[in-house]
């Protein structure tokens, strides 16, 4: 019996998703309670070993391409069915108890928080261009967003981030699994050195100069002093009051 198989068997019989630590506990307890030498030999397994085997198992099941997969959601592993079988499973086990779908504004706000966390409400509003009081309320109430701290700036505004429930709701292993995470996490577009005009007399800059990549790869602009953003990689938006708003 391989360790990997035992992990599979445990997960197969679990009533809820199990973390590597949960699995480690099962091995350790079984070692204590059993006379079996093999069981005893698994007394101390490292989390990393378990995780590596879990990843292997998941790959095996993906390759087998059956109707179920082994997935990790928010750090806990579970067997899940492929979504296309939902109609029949629904008949069998009934409708999933799940809160209603999120509205478009809530999804947009959530996307901003997910990719840019932690950030303040003002920063969210700057990206969305509208107030987010109502949707923030919804997201906080549903427990997919939470206050994670306070920005070290004047007024010490609250910083927000996503919760494990967020990962569960969207079936994500972790934040790194968010689609296009690399791209969206960066603060992408910075102003070119000088704007050129497209046509004589018109001030609109030609697209080339605005090409995002050029700018994005330049870390020319220093982080705003007001920025509460702790992540060095993403200097944040300037605080909310641009002159253009006046």
């Amino acid at each position, binding site marked *: 019996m391989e360790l990997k198989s035992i992990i599979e068997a445990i997960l*197969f*019989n*679990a*009533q*809820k*998703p199990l973390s590597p630590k949960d699995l480690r506990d099962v091995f350790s307890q079984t070692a204590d309670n059993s006379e079996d030498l093999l069981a005893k030999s698994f007394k101390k397994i490292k989390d990393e070993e378990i995780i590596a085997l879990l990843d292997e198992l998941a790959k095996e099941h993906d390759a087998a391409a059956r109707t*179920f997969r082994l997935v990790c959601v928010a750090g806990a592993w*579970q067997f*899940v*069915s*492929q*979504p*296309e079988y*939902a109609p029949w*499973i*629904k008949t069998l*086990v009934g409708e*999933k108890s799940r809160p209603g*779908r*999120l509205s*478009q504004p809530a*999804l*947009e706000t*959530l*996307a*901003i928080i997910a*990719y840019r966390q932690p950030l303040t409400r003002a920063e969210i509003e700057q*990206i*969305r*261009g*509208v*107030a987010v009081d109502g949707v923030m309320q919804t997201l906080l109430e549903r427990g997919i967003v939470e206050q994670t701290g306070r920005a070290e700036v004047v007024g010490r505004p609250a910083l927000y981030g996503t919760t494990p429930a967020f990962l569960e*709701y*969207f*079936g*994500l292993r972790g934040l790194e699994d968010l*689609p*296009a995470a690399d*791209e*969206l996490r960066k603060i*992408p*577009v910075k*102003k*070119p*050195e000088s*704007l050129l005009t497209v046509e*004589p*007399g*018109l*001030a*609109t*800059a030609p697209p080339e100069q*605005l090409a*995002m990549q050029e700018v994005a790869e330049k870390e020319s*602009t220093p982080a705003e002093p007001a920025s509460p953003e702790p992540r060095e990689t993403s200097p944040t938006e*300037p605080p909310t009051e*641009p*002159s*253009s*708003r006046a």
Partner: protein
Amino acid sequence: MSEFKVQFEIFEGPLDLLLYLVKKEEVDIYEVNLTKLATEFIAYVDLLRELDLDIAGEFLVMASTLMYIKSRELLPKDQQVVVEGEEEGEDPRWELIRQLVEYKKFKDAAGRLQEMESTQENVYRRTAPKLEFDAPAQRLQISIFDLVNAVNVILKRFTPADTRDIFEDKWTVSEKIEAIVNLIRERPAVKFSELFAAATSRTEVVVTFLAMLELIRLKQIVIAQSEAFSEIEIAQAPPQPVGPPPEPAAENPPGPAPELNLRMN
């Protein structure tokens, strides 16, 4: 009017409306004619104002920003005012495009989240059936004699007549009971197989067996198996306080036979 209102509410904010207008132009955000965009946006907002609809403040702010951009851009470049204090990073055109690009990316991301949300609705997590871990091999507390006894009970229940057929007068259970009792008085332990070794017919085996079962039931003898697969031994039960005569079966242990506990744990 209500049609407009509905339409207007589709837009989450001015950026959303702007994106919509850009999309209508079928050009990349970077290539959009901001002057034209400003005109359309302002027309939209003016229309809504005329219709006396509530307009979110953000739309008005955006409208004024766009008007500013438009007015600037209509001037030849050399006549454009350089506003004091307007430094790089605050060019309103650039600022607007940057915002639009940024907003669009998150709007797209929101779209992907939405897809994941609806997929996830259809992903069912396997919840294993609840296992009862008093698995038979571990937790059943009955002995094989309970089992045989049960057969015996059934047989008796059915066939007083049949038993008479089977149990010829030659051997009676009560005689066998006495024989066993005598045997275990002489020796501390008798092998199960010994009891039957001398049997001359299958009827005698059955009678002996029934006798033994009765003795177990009456706790006159104990039966032990030191381990799985080992030979079963019969011994005299340790003396017990005298009590009422045995109750009939209902209270007879359906569960563990005290003498033999074969738990495999």
